[in-house]
């Protein structure tokens, strides 16, 4: 469970809000669908009544005219039945599909919003992980929308029970009361038995699904397995997972089948009682044979709607759970807040870092990091402590607000600008920047500016293109998975260079490329960014050697500020960090 301060940050959960909004937005379609469901179920309930009447009025007395009449009525009943079902289905599905689409788009917009998601404000099951976000926007949006179907089906079932009740009561008061008073306890009993059984079944099914995760995991790591000859061990591991999945599935089958059997027994017992009582009433002459058949038929029929109510309640419970996750994601507080300062007209690229604290324990602004970068300068920043480097980059990229101090570009504090504007002034390109499914060309022009030949050469992408038969048209695969790490990194670098921001911060842009290419890239960056402010957060000597000056940051402060050559020759800590 979260610590007290975590709950204080988290907003009060309003689980039903997305569901309520959805119902309000779609109320017309939902109403139409529900009336269709009511109509359809009413007709279904009347089918056994018509069967009974046909036997009683036509078959028993052998009356041909009555037969034609009742078969004609049966035909009309079925026309009404099928049209009502059509209405229920069409309107209901429209409401569900439109709702889930709207909900999904709301979630996507929130997930991609420039202000970001504050991980501290996210509840455990929707916390920042990609998988969780995708599953909320994909699956939960759908499950929550299916709550609409739950409402519609429940209304239809209630209508069916109501119509049956009225018919039964008109046939005979005692028989009607028997069914009406007997049905609710039967439903309740079934529901009471079903809920824990279904819960157990679902739990076991979830465990059974694990085996598939194990297989996916092993085959994703197959190169590792092959390299080490661990295929046999992997096979054994999967066999264990598969067998425990089999046991779990069987354990789930027990409650499933017990429930199925119970349904049959309880329904049958109920039918028996109604048939016996109805038979006695018919013998007395209190009710007709047609009434008896209708009563028996209705009782048989009633089990359907009764079970559907339980099913609809289950659907609603699931929808509620999903709606809670949807609401929780939508209400995660932003990671940073933007201001309203307009973007400066003149953007030479003057960067000032003023007392930004990099130590996790917090540093007073006076002792924080102070760096002044003149427009057009290329500055290398060496931060041997990875955590400090990450914090600096997060602050520069506006992924988090600085604990103290501030960052100014063109003398404007970044947090005074709209978040997207701040990133237009100062772009941070990570060493593991993501590519998107599509072609190399599409990824390079992500920012609408196609890179020049100069940029392609500077980033080493020209060599990547030379290797790929399809060149710019080559598909990169999901998240760039068809390219090697080095190829991905170069494409991302070219993309950042093409964006051409006033201040460009590159974090370790060459960690995945070979030494030969790295050297080319180092000179390429200097050439392409000449006269444009560029900060290289790295420990690569090739890149640092190409900078105008290099600062060394230890314990959140600058301890050396000089050119690479002199630092490499004279400064012990620097040599240790960069050359070793």
């Amino acid at each position, binding site marked *: 469970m979260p610590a007290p301060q975590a709950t204080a940050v988290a907003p009060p959960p309003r689980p039903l809000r997305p569901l309520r909004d959805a119902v309000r937005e779609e109320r017309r379609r939902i109403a139409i669908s529900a009336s269709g469901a009511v109509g359809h179920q009413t007709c279904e309930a009347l*089918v056994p009544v018509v*069967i009974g009447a046909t*036997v009683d009025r036509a*078959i*028993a007395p*052998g009356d041909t005219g009555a037969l034609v009449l009742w078969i004609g009525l*049966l035909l009309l009943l079925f026309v009404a039945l*099928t049209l009502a079902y*059509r209405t229920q289905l069409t309107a209901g599905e*429209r409401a569900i*599909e439109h709702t889930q*689409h709207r909900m999904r*788009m709301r979630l996507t917009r929130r997930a991609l*919003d*420039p202000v970001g998601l504050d991980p501290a404000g996210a509840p455990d099951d929707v916390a920042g992980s990609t998988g969780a*976000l*995708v599953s909320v926007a994909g699956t939960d949006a759908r499950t929550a929308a299916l709550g609409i179907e739950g409402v519609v089906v429940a209304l239809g079932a209630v209508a069916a029970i109501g119509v049956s009740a009225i018919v039964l009561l008109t046939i005979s008061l005692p028989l009607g009361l028997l069914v009406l008073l007997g049905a609710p306890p039967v439903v309740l009993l079934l529901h009471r038995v079903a809920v824990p059984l279904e819960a157990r079944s679902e739990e076991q099914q979830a465990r059974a699904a694990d*085996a598939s995760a194990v*297989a*996916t*995991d*092993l085959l*994703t790591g*197959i190169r*590792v397995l092959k*390299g*080490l*000859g661990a295929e046999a*061990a992997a*096979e054994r591991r999967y066999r264990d997972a*598969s*067998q425990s999945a*089999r046991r779990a*599935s069987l354990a789930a*089958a*027990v409650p499933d089948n017990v429930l*199925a*059997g119970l*349904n049959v*027994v309880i*329904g*049958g017992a109920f039918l028996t009682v109604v*048939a*016996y009582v109805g*038979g*006695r009433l018919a*013998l007395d002459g209190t009710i007709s044979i047609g009434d008896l058949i209708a009563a028996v038929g209705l009782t*048989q029929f009633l089990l359907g709607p009764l079970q559907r109510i339980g099913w609809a309640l289950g659907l609603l419970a699931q929808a509620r759970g999903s709606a809670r996750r949807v609401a929780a994601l939508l209400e995660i507080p932003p990671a940073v807040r933007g201001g309203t300062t307009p973007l400066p007209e003149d953007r030479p690229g003057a960067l000032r870092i003023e007392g930004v604290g990099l130590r996790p324990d917090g540093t007073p602004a006076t002792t924080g990091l102070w760096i002044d970068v003149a427009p057009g300068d290329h500055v290398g920043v060496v931060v041997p402590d990875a955590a400090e*480097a990450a914090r600096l980059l997060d602050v520069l990229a506006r992924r988090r607000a600085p604990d103290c101090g501030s960052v100014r570009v063109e003398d404007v504090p970044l947090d005074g600008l709209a978040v997207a504007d701040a*990133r237009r002034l100062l772009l*941070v390109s990570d060493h593991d*920047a*993501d590519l998107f499914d599509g072609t190399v060309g599409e990824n390079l022009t992500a920012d609408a500016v196609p890179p020049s030949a100069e940029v392609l050469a500077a980033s080493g992408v020209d060599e990547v293109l030379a*290797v790929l038969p399809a060149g710019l048209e080559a598909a990169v695969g*999901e998240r760039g998975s068809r390219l090697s790490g080095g190829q991905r990194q170069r494409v991302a670098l070219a993309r*950042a260079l093409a964006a051409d921001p006033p201040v460009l911060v590159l974090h370790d842009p060459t*960690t995945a490329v*070979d030494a030969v290419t790295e050297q080319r890239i180092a000179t390429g960056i200097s050439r392409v960014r000449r006269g444009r402010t560029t900060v290289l957060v790295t420990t690569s000597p090739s890149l640092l050697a190409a900078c105008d000056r290099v600062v060394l940051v230890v314990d959140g402060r600058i301890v050396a500020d000089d050119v690479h*050559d002199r630092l490499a*020759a004279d400064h012990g800590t620097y040599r240790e960090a960069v050359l070793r």
Partner: protein
Amino acid sequence: MSGRLLLPTASPRETRRAIGRLVRPRRGLAVAALGLLVAAAAAGLLVPPLLGRLVDVTIDRGTVSELTAPAVLLGAAAVTQGLLTAVGGLLLARLGEALLAELRERVVARSLELPLEELDGAGAGDVLSRVSGDVAVVSQAIRTVLPAVATAGFTVALTVGGLVLLDWRLAVAALAAVPIQVVGLRWYLRTVVPIYRRERVVQGERTQQLVDSVSGARTVRALGLHEDREARVRASSERGRDVALEGVLRLRGFLHAVNGAELVGLASVLVVGFLLVRADALTVGAATAGALYFHRAFDPVGELLMVFDDLQEAMTALARMVGVASLPETARDGAETEDAHRHHGPVDVDVLALRHDYGGSPVLHGVDVRIAAGEHVALIGTTGAGKTTFAKIVAGVLEPSAGDVRIGGTALGDLGPGELRRTVALVAQEPHVFAGTLADDLRLVAPGAPDDELWDALRHVGADGWVRELPDGLGTRVGEGGLRLSATRVQHLALARIVLRDVPVVLLDEATAEAGSAGARILEDAALRALRGRTSVVVAHRLTQAATADRVLVMDRGEIVEDGHHDELVAAGGRYADLWLAWTGAGRDAPAG
């Protein structure tokens, strides 16, 4: 997708045979399950005639005591049917799950044995979709479709049988529904099912768009791409919505057919009942029973028609599973008993006239090199120079187009798969942490190793410190769904696996890439320790790795262009020397190697 179809799919006949082979050892169970379900359906079908009997008693003005027997039998039939349904269903589940487990284990086993070349590219997706997607479809079918088909199928069959027992003419009347059902089903399969298939494809694309955009959210924000990405997600979500709605529109035709069949069948039974009663060929009760029979079969028939598509889909998935499961099994030569064969000291590696090309484009042109026992070699070169291909071939995971690799004098091809794995190991570019506990991950390469041995290996590469600090030490859950390890730690684990594997020859392919520069140095130390006492080739990314190696090989366009110790190559003033000068800044005094 490239449309490269890689893995075989079984024909319907092969699939049936494979299922037959799986069922054969479990024949008794199969017979019992089906027998019980038939009996359950039969018990259920006693209900309409018993109700008919009640009707006849009232028409004949019988006594109250005459009602008792049919009523008691009704109750008994219900209890019997319930019991048989539960037990039969359970046995059916037991049978289905056992078949499924055996089949999926074979699919995974054969997939793990596939050669790496086949897994590269489009093949990996195909394999993954078979071991997860297809298995999921089939297991879902076993849970829902199989029982539905079994019970509904028997109910329908026995309904017809029950009608025949009442009067064969009633059965014929009921069959009037069949032509409409057939037409409806054909419409469904031809019109609705393709839309459902398309819907699943579109949903997959939508998920793909979501994953792509959300997992790249950092980059999306950095470059201000949110509007573009949102538009893409919107487009795919709208496509999903529209296809789903189209499916519903088409489904309506099918539902009208189902209802129409119910109407026609029911009306026919009533009319024929009327005629037979009037001709004194049938009692009113029997006619009632006939109508109730037919009414009772509405739901099972509807269900049967609705699961038809799932059934078809499950059969397709099954054919894909059987296709993989039927691949020939790779011979094993005791790869499981590696503990008895721990190596004794390093061995040398000879590479002779090695050539390789991928689909016509040459990658290696005649590489000859001899690596002495215990030598540490660094391999340097640009991307595309052939370093990774070289490493894969020497490690025996890739078959060369031509040429020879000898380890300790024996050609790779002459080592059996088990012996090969006891001799040489490759740490590949793509790191992976297996889901499960950290100890589970390590035990993949050393099955049954005690904790002490795991700790020794971790200590050897200097990873014991951070492992000890994890919440549950070796028992900490890592990988998918567990604790996310940094790139440095992932590689650290990869090196610990090498120590556990304890082979004389190790190839390390850009093991330090992407770890960031700070992590790289920790890993270089760890690699040095892990490789001590082994013959090793490191595809070096940082030149400091080359400087500390016994020997440096510089590769370019599939050939080795420089070969020698760091100092010699620097002194020779060639390609490597240029690199080194650039790397160390102005080429001031080189760090101690």
